[in-house]
């Protein structure tokens, strides 16, 4: 009985509220129980939509509350969390948004990367001193351990300036992003999130480094995209921003 009840109620709670229906829950018999079932349905769906609103606040401002709400409720009904951990809920939301609004979907991808970086594991950053301990002649063969928070994003809209502006002014409207290639490195040096806009070559090189390729191979990947790439400047930036947690030969 308990198993059937829970399966029925789960279906009823994730369904669209269709007015007078009984929700198909055998134990919710009679008009009072059927009406009260709607309290649970509203709690479940609204709380999941609110969890998405908390994870994607700039996307919400970009889309406006009504459009975001429709998208969030639809996502919550079709893709409820798979575990009781709301900080991990919403990874599929950017892709679900892409069918409605590709600019908003890119903003959501940036916000999800920020969220993941914020909750990523802690690790002491690789310092320039520790790196200097390696023989200079071996640098080309170095491989790096990325900081758990570091990730590179390839976006199709200029969402980063809009995201930054939204952090500074929490009341201002967020205009629609313009199409255009944008590569972003998301990091968590110390306790705050940092987003760095990258030239295309640097994005390719850093992704290769984060994937564990040697510095020589990463440099080749970057230079193939952008022959004028400043490799030394890039490496300095990665060290200064705590993007790397270790190195080995």
């Amino acid at each position, binding site marked *: *009985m*308990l*198993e059937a*009840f*829970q*399966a029925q*109620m*789960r279906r009823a*709670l*994730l369904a669209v509220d269709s007015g007078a229906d009984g929700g198909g829950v*055998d*134990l*919710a*018999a*009679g*008009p*009072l*129980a*059927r*009406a*009260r*079932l*709607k*309290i*649970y349905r509203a*709690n*479940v769906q609204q*709380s*999941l939509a609110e*969890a998405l609103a908390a994870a994607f606040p700039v996307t919400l401002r970009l889309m406006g509350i009504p459009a975001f709400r429709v998208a969030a409720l639809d996502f919550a009904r079709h893709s*409820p*969390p*798979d*575990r*009781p*951990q*709301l*900080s991990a809920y919403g990874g599929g939301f950017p892709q679900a948004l892409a069918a409605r609004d590709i600019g908003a979907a890119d903003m959501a991808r940036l916000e999800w990367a920020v969220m993941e970086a*914020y*909750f*990523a*594991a*802690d*690790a002491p950053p690789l310092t320039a001193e520790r790196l200097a301990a390696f023989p200079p002649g071996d640098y080309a063969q170095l491989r790096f351990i990325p900081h*758990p*928070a570091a990730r590179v994003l390839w976006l199709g809209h200029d969402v980063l300036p809009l995201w930054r502006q939204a952090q500074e002014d929490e009341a201002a409207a967020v205009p629609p992003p313009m199409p255009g290639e944008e590569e972003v490195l998301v990091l*968590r040096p110390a*306790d705050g999130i940092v987003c760095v806009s990258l030239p295309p070559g640097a994005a390719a090189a850093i992704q290769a480094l984060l994937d564990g390729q040697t510095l020589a191979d990463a440099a080749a990947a970057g230079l193939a995209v952008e022959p004028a790439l400043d490799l030394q400047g890039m490496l300095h930036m990665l060290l200064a921003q705590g993007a790397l947690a270790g190195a080995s030969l």
Partner: protein
Amino acid sequence: MDTVAARPAVPSVVTLPRRAGIGLRHPHVPAFLADDRPDVAWLEVHSETYLVAGGPRLAGLEAIRRDYPLSCHGVGLSLGAAGGLDSAHLANLRRLYDRLQPDQVSDHLAWAGTGGAYLNDLLPLPLTAGTLDVVAANVAQAQDALGRRLLVENPSLYMPLTLPPGEEAMPEPRFLAELAARTGCGLLLDVNNVAVSAHNLGFDAAGYLADFPLWAVGEIHVAGHRREAFAPWVGPDAGPDAVVLIDDHGSVVSDGVWDLLTGVLSRTGPLPVLVEWDMDVPPLAVLLGEAARAQAHLDRVAQGWVDEGGVARHA
């Protein structure tokens, strides 16, 4: 004097200070990290909020935890799930609890998901003998996996359940008493939930509390609730001015709930009392003011009680 004889045969179910505590909410974290620490006896957090790999949220709680007794209150174990508990979730909680070393851990007499979906709500259970078997097995598994005694909280209820012929519902106090006796778990008595459920399901809160197994209670919750007109969903058996109480933890504690608290404390002596506030979180001073009110109730009742080896007894 033989002090050993005054100690209970099993470790006391009360492991937090018998004083007023508050829920730690994100907007108040900076105040607790500052040099001038807020004066409150203990703190409670929602366990699942801190199930993250790292970062400032977890680091902040670890720093605060060094200065305050801590209760970790879960909302996601789904102790009533017919399909059993999520072992990956249990392992994650165990890691968190081993890291924070909370003074107490708890969750609810409810289910929160099934079939790989977590519904982010505390959902009602038909309180039958079969359900007791399920919940008892789940509580035993959780206590084993977490390596800790669990307190189980009475839920707030909105919907009457109609059982099929041949099934009989147990009153919730009896269900919880049997659960505690069978598993050795403690209970978390939420007197606001008693008021909310009593109103919504039409039972007598005082009678419920008269039957409640207070010997197993290790903590009490008080919170605010919202009165909502039931008119939009009115059925033939609901009167024109029917209201439903919504347990939103979004306002001050009502007079009726303070009265229920006083009645319980007069029978148990001082217990840890938590003021919960989750929606429209007010400035910390307001929350501390509510805690001071709870403490005043505790102080009034404390006069007639003494602490003997962790057990409150009449003086």
